[in-house]
């Protein structure tokens, strides 16, 4: 298990005292194609950080670098460092299994396992050796309550998760991710395949979850970034053009390109 560092009195130019994630000069390659250029930023704890930018700008690649899901793709390579807690995660010695327990992920398309609702939740905890029936039941109820799904599904925990609606499936996937008690939650456009009402529910849920988790979310939806995030990073062509509080990015960006993008003039 990775541990978070103790608070320090170090001066922090970006106003972030205790980052959950520190990125230093991080670059990423698919083969010889460099898709992320020298990214440096610090992501604060218990806040929602939105990654925005046009398609192909590298924001999803960056997100998937934080739990090393890019490892699944052949021929990838990285430079620089990403520090989660106090551990550099792109070293050969990195315990990927522990990393992924600390850094959970929710995907763009809801992807519940073809198992029962309860089994979806307990899959993670079982991996970590929890076998006790009673304890697992507790986790199922607790996490389903946290995502606001408990009342809707309490009578059919044994039913297939694939029978749920799209919005319910995505909330189940969030429940599945938080059932292993991660510290950071990565979300890759978690509401882009949902209708407006289901999207609303996911957004409300994200705002509740930030009390307990650090959330990094990729979104194509400007309004969504403005509504739910505390900080926003604008990615363009593999670089972070601007990273600041969401208020600054949307009302008073320093870069002209950022302003053009958030006001819809390009992208």
């Amino acid at each position, binding site marked *: 298990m990775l541990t978070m560092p103790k608070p320090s009195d170090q001066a922090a130019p970006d106003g972030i005292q205790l980052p959950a994630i520190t990125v230093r000069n991080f670059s990423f390659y698919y083969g010889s194609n460099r898709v992320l250029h020298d990214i440096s930023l610090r992501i604060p704890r218990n806040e929602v950080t939105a990654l925005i930018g046009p398609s192909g700008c590298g924001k999803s690649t960056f997100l998937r670098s934080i739990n090393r899901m890019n490892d699944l793709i052949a021929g990838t390579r990285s430079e620089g460092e990403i520090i989660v807690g106090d551990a550099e995660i792109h070293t050969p010695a990195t315990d990927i299994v522990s990393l992924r327990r600390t850094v959970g992920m929710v*995907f763009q398309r809801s*992807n519940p396992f073809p*198992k029962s609702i309860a089994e979806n939740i307990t899959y*993670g905890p079982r991996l970590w050796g929890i076998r006790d029936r009673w304890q697992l039941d507790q986790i199922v109820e607790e996490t389903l309550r946290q995502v606001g799904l408990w009342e809707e599904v309490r009578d059919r925990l044994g039913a297939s998760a694939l029978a749920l609606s799209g919005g319910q499936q995505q909330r189940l*996937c969030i429940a*599945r991710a938080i059932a292993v008690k991660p510290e950071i939650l990565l979300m890759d456009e978690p509401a882009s395949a949902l209708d407006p009402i289901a999207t609303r529910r996911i957004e409300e849920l994200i705002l509740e979850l930030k009390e307990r988790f650090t959330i990094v979310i990729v979104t194509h939806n400007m309004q969504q970034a403005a509504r739910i995030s505390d900080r926003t990073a604008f990615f363009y062509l593999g670089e972070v053009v601007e990273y600041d509080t969401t208020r600054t990015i949307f009302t008073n960006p320093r870069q002209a390109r950022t302003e053009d993008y958030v006001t819809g003039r390009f992208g």
Partner: protein
Amino acid sequence: MSQRIHDTRRSKQIRRDRLGRGLIALAAGLVLAIMLLIIVDLVAGGASVLSWEFLTAMPRARLTAGGILPCIVGTIAVTLVTTLFAIPFGLATAIYLNEYARDTWGTRLIRLAIRNLAGVPSIVYGIFGVALFVNGLSLGTSIISAGLTLGLLTIPWTITASEEALRSVPPAWREASLALGASRWKTIRSIVLPRAVPGIITGGILGITRAAGETAPLLFTGAAFSLPGLPQSVFEPFMALPYHIYVLATQHEKINAVRPLAYGTALVLIGMILALSLVAIIIRARLRKRHGGASL
């Protein structure tokens, strides 16, 4: 408007369309007709000899009377050996290729080898089986040698069937499992395999039914013309349905007298193969139901 409706060019197109559809339907119908013709021919030639005794008795009077029990037992035993060898072997290879291997020249070479193995004539497998199992591993002419030889012949099919089944499992499920901290192997065991098993079993059984009817690989690896009793272990020679048909149809001294027996044996073989296919279909239907209906 009416001119357009009666446009001769268009009606020509429609005629062509009908002709094309007709030819395609004819081809499909022909397949059915051939299948029916084979069955009718077999029934006409062999139904007269079918009896309980035919299925449960030893052959008598130099194969001209009695039953074909040793052939049935031999084919079942050989097919079992083939199954136990080819399905795990094929599945393991498929898991490696589909879940672990990256696209390197090495894996491409393996795939090329599999495709070519599928095209190797079965008699070549027979000769190879003699060299490897009968002589090389000193297993002798036996059920195990013949079963392993047929296993080699079936492996390209079980690999392909398993790979297709594994590929049909959505990558999103693997990602979800890995993102929760599961290892690759745990992901395969808990998420991928349960979903892929129906396809693996169906494809595997279809490959095995093909092997069950093979004759050439049995010729030198263990099938006997005639034996006094049932084999007592897998290290003994055996009689087999396809080889028995071959013997009765071409090698027997009284070919015309035993013709109905050859037809009857063929009927039993076809029946066994149909039964195996049916089992595959039933298993697939059952497992599909258990694992949450239609695939994504």
